[in-house]
């Protein structure tokens, strides 16, 4: 069966997983996604689901039996490679709590149906995964099932990690076994009934989880396939860059189509529409700079993407980042070309007010005409982040400011001040409206109400 949509999984996982990354709270969409996931299977599918349940349990037993049966690889080059791959997978973002010990887990993910805690994946035999075998670890990566037969909640990006090769899984395991063990028990989830019934995940898995390693496309280059493997697998980019509907679902076409990240309230740009953030007119260098350094001629990473660059992408090799960029460049532009035509009409008074505020507070860095000063001060004219359909990101950046992440290539980033404390909703709406409609930009005006709503968005 073709997945009804593996992206529904992504959507669901995004609701979970991305909140994981930034340790923020989850709300209604997550709940809807669960309901959708649980309610969708018809009885025939449920039959399949429970058959799968039995198979899963049957499979789990040998995996559990194998636990501890073979030792992890300790060769330094393999461990080093595993560290690199663990960074590509950004394991640390979720499996290390703030002020917590590395890979000791304990990051809280609050949801409307209770709290999930990331588990300890350090090599402690009692509390971590020290007693696991490479087989058991690989089985978990491929199937989303732990050695004791538990189904993982999709806060773990299992739909993406299933694409990881055995060799890479073994290397990651070798690395995880090499770090200091953490003698702290994983905190049990505190989910309410019925969400604490892991068997319910079976229906969801039947619909949205497709097990299997990444299959290279023989018509594409080695570089492209490497990029696709990293983006679709360990990088788990579709966790955020996927459009989900109100039920947490989406169609295959919406893979990489971007969307608002629930609860966190940042907009993940589309990668399949140049009108809404797509990379069609980006050079490979621009993409590489953005992902790896955190800044580029086109703009900087911010919000949740800053975290991804900080913990993960800055450590990727030039070749791998170029491969990812090469793959991303080939994603289709489903709504061809950038936005064009005249700028949206705005209220004259609002535009003038925005212009005054811009000249007073923004032009110093971003230039009189929004030309910026690359790469530290992003251009605002013809910047897709500014022109996107959603005004969430420009509003939040004006309110909250932000530093690009400090990276190996840009260790001392220039920060943008927050203006939320000195601009009223009216002023902030005016200046964002100005930025989105001046200099030929094609964004739509924003309202005071939108600004006010985003003052409540979670920050840290």
């Amino acid at each position, binding site marked *: 069966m073709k997945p009804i949509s593996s992206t529904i999984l992504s959507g669901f996982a995004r609701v979970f997983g991305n909140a994981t990354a930034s340790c923020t709270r989850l709300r209604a969409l997550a709940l809807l996604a669960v309901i959708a996931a649980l309610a969708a299977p018809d009885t025939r599918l449920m039959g399949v689901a429970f058959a799968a349940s039995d198979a899963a349990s049957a499979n789990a037993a040998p995996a559990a039996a194998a636990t501890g049966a073979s030792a992890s690889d300790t060769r330094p080059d393999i461990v080093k490679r595993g560290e690199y791959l663990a960074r590509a997978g950004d394991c640390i973002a979720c499996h290390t709590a*703030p*002020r917590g010990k590395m890979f000791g887990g304990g990051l809280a993910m609050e949801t409307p149906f209770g709290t999930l805690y990331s588990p300890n994946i350090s090599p402690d035999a009692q509390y971590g995964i020290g007693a696991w075998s490479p087989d058991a670890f690989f089985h978990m990566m491929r199937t989303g099932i732990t050695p004791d037969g538990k189904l993982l909640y999709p806060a773990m990006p299992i739909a993406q990690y299933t694409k990881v090769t055995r060799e890479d899984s073994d290397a990651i395991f070798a690395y995880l076994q090499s770090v200091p063990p953490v003698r702290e028990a994983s905190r049990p989830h505190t989910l309410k009934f019925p969400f604490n019934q892991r068997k319910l995940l079976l229906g969801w898995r039947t619909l949205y989880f497709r097990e299997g390693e990444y299959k290279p496309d023989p018509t594409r280059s080695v570089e492209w396939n490497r990029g696709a493997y990293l983006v679709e697998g360990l990088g788990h980019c579709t966790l955020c860059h996927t459009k989900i509907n109100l039920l947490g679902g989406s169609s295959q076409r919406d893979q990489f189509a971007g969307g608002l990240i629930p609860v966190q309230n940042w907009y993940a740009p589309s990668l399949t529409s140049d009108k809404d953030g797509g990379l069609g007119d980006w050079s490979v260098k621009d993409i590489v700079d953005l992902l790896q350094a955190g800044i580029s001629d086109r703009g900087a990473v911010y919000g949740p993407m*800053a*975290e991804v*660059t*900080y913990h993960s992408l800055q450590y990727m090799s030039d070749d791998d980042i170029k491969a990812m960029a090469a793959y991303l460049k080939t994603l289709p532009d489903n709504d061809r070309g950038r936005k064009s035509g005249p700028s949206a*009409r*705005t209220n*004259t008074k609002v*535009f*003038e007010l925005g*212009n005054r505020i811009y000249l007073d507070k923004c032009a110093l*860095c971003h230039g*009189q*005409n929004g030309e910026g000063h690359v790469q530290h001060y992003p251009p605002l004219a013809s910047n897709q982040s500014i022109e996107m359909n959603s005004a969430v990101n420009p509003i939040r950046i004006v309110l*909250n*400011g*932000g*530093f*690009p*992440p*400090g990276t190996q290539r840009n*260790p*001392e*980033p*220039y*920060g*943008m*001040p*927050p*203006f*939320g*404390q*000195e601009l009223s909703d009216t002023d902030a709406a005016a200046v964002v409206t100005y930025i989105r409609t*001046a200099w030929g930009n094609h964004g739509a005006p924003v309202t005071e109400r939108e600004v006010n709503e985003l003052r409540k968005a*979670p*920050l*840290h």
Partner: protein
Amino acid sequence: MRINAFSLTRLGVQRRTIGSSLLLVICAAWACATLAATDAAAPMPLAMDERVRACTSCHGAQGQGRDNDYFPRIAGKPADYLFNQLIAFRDGGRTYPPMGYLIAFLPDDYLHKISQYFADQQPPYPNSDTGNVPPAVLAYGERLVTHGDPARKLPACAACHGARLTGAQPGIPGLLGLHASYIAGQMGTWRSGTRHAVAPDCMHAIAVKLTDKDITAVSSWLARQPRPDDPRPAASSAGPLPLACGSQPQ
């Protein structure tokens, strides 16, 4: 009509910006020429003041703080103290979401540099608080600051923060130049355990012994002290601290 007005406005804007741009280009050219004339090989300035605009927009251009209780003076405090605070905001020892958000993805090395930058600033102190506080309260505050309360095993503020109350390198901050309500607020967060310092957290140990009356008296008296003649922190603690502090290893 409205469209016409709008168009005219836009044209006006356009004219102004073109004019300004020209001016900017001329200025830039002049600046380059000047720079070239003085020192052709001059490296790019470190431009820390540029990099930390996100800090100074609230804490003041030199970190002198704002005339409110949210954005305290950070200038001239010991660099390690400032670094400890940044780490705490970043990693959860102190909770103020706008701060934590801003520096969430800045590495330690850069936070050290930012701390040193503000530690090196010595802008003028603000005027002292002049609000009406009963003399008895001030007298009590002064006694606690300078002598503590031995009966309750409360050390004097001055025992750690220095006789001049300007702090001590490397990790003890000065207490002057802050608003009374800011100081009181921090005492409250230490007392309730929402602000943490490096263990052992001596300020928490002290704050849990403080009554509201103590906090009001101490913060009122501190905020009324005149600008110190020498605002720099002492080079080191004058003697052994009355209790162990993780921020000031001895």
